[in-house]
């Protein structure tokens, strides 16, 4: 088998922290090589060293000339057309001007290689995120990239889109491309990986074959045995704390009824676009709605008023941590006290930071933390506010297994104290494993409710059902 990249003994420090510690890595032609590890284990640093964004302190890398990285934040220009993005940087020219005709001729051929059938004249901003990824991959392939590094591409994709991406990856592997694939979804790894390099604390702790079990992967990753992935501790439900009834926003969601009792975790499952996040935001007062009521502990909330919702005891951990949850220019402590600015209490702040087991000091800039620790900060700012009901929207997206379990334990602790949690999640095993009841939404309506112990098939059957208009 042809080796495309050989990295030996890669070591990289950032200040006093050792981000990479003697990592060896081989990338073969025609393989899907998964990099697995918790957030902060060194995956991103390794990718950046391979790509030449960072220089390693010691160690050698051979063969990285034909390498392309597809980052999570896509490097496309939204206002330009698909064709222009494909040839960005080396637009074909004729008589000194951009050769539009030639560009349009060559574009479909490139798009074909990733199985994307869109109008090359369409603006990139009008395409979905999955299609945008494909455009970046097509662009990388046109530069004859022999090695393609995909940094958590599936984190932003729906299930069908993920399936499509994995198909394309299999196709590229067949054509002899070496693929480095970073993902937190173990099922995806089992479907496509040829080899898995597991990183922990900057070191490569093992290279696994394609038939590695989930358990084996997790244990290598966290460095200790994990008893249970979803350690939900049930409570006896008390009085209703959050009552959403008849909530309607024309064209977005209709007649949504959800009740969450003290001590209870209610999950909201459904496909992307089913209206789950929209209901959560409307209930919290971020967006308005046309009809219906939202009440916390029996008291109705005014529409479109976040401050009133918080005062009544509601909290929301939004789906996009970086865009909606954190002030990245500020420190951990400053982020923790965002909600409780009016009555600051530094003792409680340190107390919560300790309880959350946030790796990093309170004075540290929050952008230096790993994704999992950042998410704990977002949850922590709400714990400081002491809400009766916390709405969690995709709380473990892009979070590693170890931090996931810690977040689940936080949910358990909240419900044990008589609080209620509304859990919106696209991760089916999670929403089933952690919820006491699962409300399934489809096309902006509640399609049904399932008790604890429901199967993924039951949830999916409700999620995809057609509701007569």
């Amino acid at each position, binding site marked *: 088998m042809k080796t495309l990249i050989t990295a030996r003994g890669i070591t990289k420090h950032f200040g006093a922290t050792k981000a990479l510690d003697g990592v060896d890595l081989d990338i073969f032609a025609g393989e899907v090589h998964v990099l697995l590890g918790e957030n902060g284990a060194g995956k991103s640093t390794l990718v950046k060293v391979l790509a030449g964004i960072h220089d390693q302190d010691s160690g050698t890398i051979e063969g990285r000339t034909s390498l392309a990285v597809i980052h999570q934040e896509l490097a496309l220009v939204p206002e330009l057309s698909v064709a222009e993005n494909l040839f960005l940087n080396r637009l074909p020219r004729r008589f000194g001007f951009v050769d539009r005709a030639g560009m349009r001729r060559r574009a479909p051929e490139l798009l074909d290689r990733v199985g994307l059938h869109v109008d090359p004249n369409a603006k990139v901003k009008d395409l979905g995120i999955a299609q945008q990824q494909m455009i970046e991959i097509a662009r990388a392939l046109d530069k004859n990239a022999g090695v393609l590094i995909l940094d958590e591409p599936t984190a932003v994709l729906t299930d069908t889109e993920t399936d499509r991406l994995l198909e394309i990856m299999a196709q590229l592997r067949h054509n002899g491309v070496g693929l480095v694939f970073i993902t937190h979804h173990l099922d995806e790894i089992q479907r496509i990986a040829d080899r898995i390099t597991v990183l922990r604390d900057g070191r490569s702790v093992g290279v696994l074959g394609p038939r590695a079990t989930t358990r084996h992967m997790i244990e290598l990753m966290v460095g200790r045995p994990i008893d249970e992935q979803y350690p939900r501790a049930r409570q006896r439900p008390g009085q209703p704390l959050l009552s959403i009834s008849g909530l309607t926003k024309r064209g977005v969601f209709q007649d949504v009824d959800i009740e969450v009792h003290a001590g209870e975790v209610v999950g909201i499952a459904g496909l992307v676009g089913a209206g789950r996040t929209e209901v959560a935001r409307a209930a919290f007062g971020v967006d308005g709605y046309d009809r219906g009521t939202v009440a916390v502990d029996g008291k109705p909330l005014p529409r479109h008023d976040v401050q009133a919702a918080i005062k009544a005891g509601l909290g929301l951990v939004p789906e996009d941590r970086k865009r*909606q949850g954190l*002030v990245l220019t500020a420190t951990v402590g400053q982020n923790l006290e965002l909600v409780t600015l009016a009555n600051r209490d530094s003792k409680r702040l340190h107390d919560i930071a300790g309880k959350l087991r946030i790796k990093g000091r309170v004075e540290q800039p929050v952008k230096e933390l790993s994704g999992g620790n950042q998410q704990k900060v977002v949850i922590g700012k709400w714990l400081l506010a002491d809400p009766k009901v916390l709405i969690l929207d995709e709380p473990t997206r892009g979070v590693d297994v170890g931090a996931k379990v810690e977040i689940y334990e936080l949910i358990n602790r909240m419900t044990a104290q008589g609080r209620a949690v509304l859990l919106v999640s696209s991760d089916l095993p999670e929403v089933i494993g952690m919820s006491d009841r699962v409300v399934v939404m489809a096309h902006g309506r509640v399609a049904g409710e399932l008790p604890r112990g429901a199967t993924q098939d039951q949830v999916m059957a409700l999620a995809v059902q057609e509701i007569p208009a």
Partner: protein
Amino acid sequence: MSTISIRKYASENGALAGLVVLALVIAFMQPAFLNAQNLLNVGVQAAVIAIMAFGMTFVVVAGGIDLSVGSIAALAALVGALTAGPVGLVVGALCGLVNGALISYGKLPPFIATLAMLSVARGLTLVFSEGQPHETDEVVTFLGSNLAPMLPLPLLLMLAFFGITGLVLTRTNLGRRMYAIGGNEEAAKLSGIDVRRTKLWIYALSGLFAAAAGLVLAGRLGSAGPQAAVGYELDAIAAVVIGGASLSGGVGRATGTLVGALVLAVLRNGLNLLQVPPFWQQVVIGAVIALAALLDSLRRR
């Protein structure tokens, strides 16, 4: 110390180091620079821009910009001369409130809203002054005078505003909200911060500070003219940026802005002492601003 805090230290004190180097170079070339009276003059010359720039710091930290401060200063000074100083302050704060309302409730970009105010406030100054300078009363004139032989009031006012700014930024909810909004407006909103009302306050404060700067300027000159403080908004922005604030918001400190304003004043004073022709002074000052921003950008990389 983590890399970030070292970097923070360097960027904070980078401007300060620049100021010291600048002063040393000028003192070497023209020892008269170190004369106590001259140093006091530098402080007085820095005061107007510094007070304005402190108000601008609130705006910039919150991710905005205020182009109208020069015009507001002129209008407030004129109103102060025609009526009384405190009325000028109220007018300045009101202009700021209008800016804030246009930005918060009218959803105009700060650049546009304050550009409009730049023109409106300057126009009103021309209208009310009928194109003529007006003498200031003794209260306003007092603001520009010496409290004692070596104790110029503008300098003390600058230090007072510096203290207020530092307090507001670091010790009040309003200040913490400014950093949150400038760092991530969406996250601030979702954390229950009333972003719109906070912005109203921020621009009102900027207007108030600009008015105070205008009154100090008029006090020093003994009159308020229709063309007072033209272009001062750019100096104020320059002072904030030299002080290490980020125009994309979320970063900035009162000490940085003070140092930034002093850098500009030391430079102007030094160039005068070195008898650099005024036309060339503009070129040098522009180059220094670019250099300061460049150094800061290199340090952050």
